[in-house]
């Protein structure tokens, strides 16, 4: 069996990729995808840890995270659609009404 620590390393890499992408990219859709990558990195950790510890708690938490992520995506995409309709733009840099 693959040891849990390997999964943890994988997770940290995935999480870092997501976090870096979120900071480096300005396209809102890509930023949303990066958040999903981060959340799924956490899911992988939890599943690995849950299996390592032979618990169900972690698996339950994973289901909750997936459900909440779906709700989050619904709100995020709704906002993107509204913004796009208004400005024809989905790059965060272009929204400069609020400043100071």
């Amino acid at each position, binding site marked *: 069996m693959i040891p849990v620590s390997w999964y943890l390393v994988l997770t940290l890499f995935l999480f870092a990729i997501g976090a870096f992408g979120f900071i480096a990219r300005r396209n809102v859709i890509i930023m949303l995808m990066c958040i999903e990558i*981060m959340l799924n990195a956490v899911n992988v950790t939890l599943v690995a840890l849950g299996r390592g510890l032979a618990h169900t708690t972690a698996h*339950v*938490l994973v289901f909750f995270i997936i459900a909440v992520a779906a709700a989050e995506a619904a709100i995020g995409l709704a906002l993107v659609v509204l913004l796009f309709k208004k400005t024809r733009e989905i790059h965060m840099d272009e929204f400069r009404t609020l400043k100071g």
Partner: protein
Amino acid sequence: MWSSLPSFVAVYPETLLVVVASVMALVDRWITRKAVFTWATIVTALLALALVFLTQGTTFGHAYAADQYGVFFKTIFLLVLFLVALLAPGYNQLLGINFGEFYALLMYAVTGMMLMASTRDLILLYLGLELMSLSVYVLVGLLYAELRSLEGAMKYFLLGSFASAFLLLAMAFLYGLTGTTNIEAIAKALLAANLSANKALFLSAALFVVAFAFKVALVPFHMWSPDAYEGAPTSVTAFMSVGPKAAGFAAMGRVFLIALAAAKTEWTQLLVPLAVLTMFTGAVLAVVQTNIKRLLAYSSITHAGYAVLGIIAGTKEGMAATMLYLFLYAFMNIGAFSVIVLMRRRNFLGENIFDYQGLSKTHPTVALLLLIFLFSLTGIPPTAGFIGKFFVFRAAFEAGHTALVILAVLASAIAAYPYLRIVMLMYMKPPEKEVEISLNPYIFAGLMFAVTGVLLFGVYPGPVIDFARACCTGFLP
């Protein structure tokens, strides 16, 4: 264990809120008199408050506990709901957002906060946090015909979700270390296994600090807050400047003071620089603002910096001081936002601070009210703001953070300038333009309630601080 239905008494207040909110969101289409929703919200808030004091016990397999600590925070949240329900109707009607969903979303957000305050399990903490955050993202974007509302909502949403991912990773590490998500069990496991020097525990504490710093807007994780505060409808800004912040502190108390008590030195080390940075950055940036909502956003960043001192102190007295601070902050901040709401007309935002010029000549009472709220935010006795600051500073001082308290006092000297500048504009400059005030019975009642709170607790804070201390007994040693 599951053969009989468990008792749900502990979640009766939350159940009431969710049921009323869902009904309001559904029947909105058939009810033309929107005042019904305002009244329903006010009555539900008061009923839920009564229930909070009446219900006790735990439920969901001890994941949720209606304990004293939660009672104090729930009082704050329901007070905020009550005050915002009074402030909102006139303003929302003017902007065409006075519908059932507005009040329903407020109630969902409050439910999420209440779950955060009473949770004994990290899973429930996450769910409460998300219920609160998702509702508030939608509330910020409610004015979607205006670009700035959407932009504020988008920024808040992106950074809020980003922070949630950090929170989850922190929880995953803590779970991996201890094998449980129960907060008390985590504390015990960390002490028993002597993990206080563990690298993963440090990483988990750091991730928690980042996640909560985003939620309560500590510098350098505050970037979303001025934009979201300015873009949001003012009624929502009033709500989110107090409610989610207080909920964030409630969760911080549970996580840092209980679950991560073994890593106290580590998270204190991380929070102290954040607190200093927050107090100074908030104070300095507020000086250059000319939009009053943005100014109050930076002021609320500074205030989060003061409130975090109580958590840093890490004692019972410190937590009680933070709780008292948040309670008093609800009165003064929502009061100040009520005055901003008063200024709004159909074609006039009333958000520039120069709109307040000479207000004492044209509307002396409104100017006096704003003066009291601003003095309270500055921390001038005999207002509530002074009492709040005094107790947090004293708690931090008694816990041995002398340098931090000196810096906090310096920061509050800088922070006084922006408030006093508005006071100066109101009282020492002649009026430049005609300003109309849109007063209605609701907001009048709300303003009276807020100003009474600010003045009453400014001279007689005894009962509240005793109540806060009593609520922390049994929560902290």
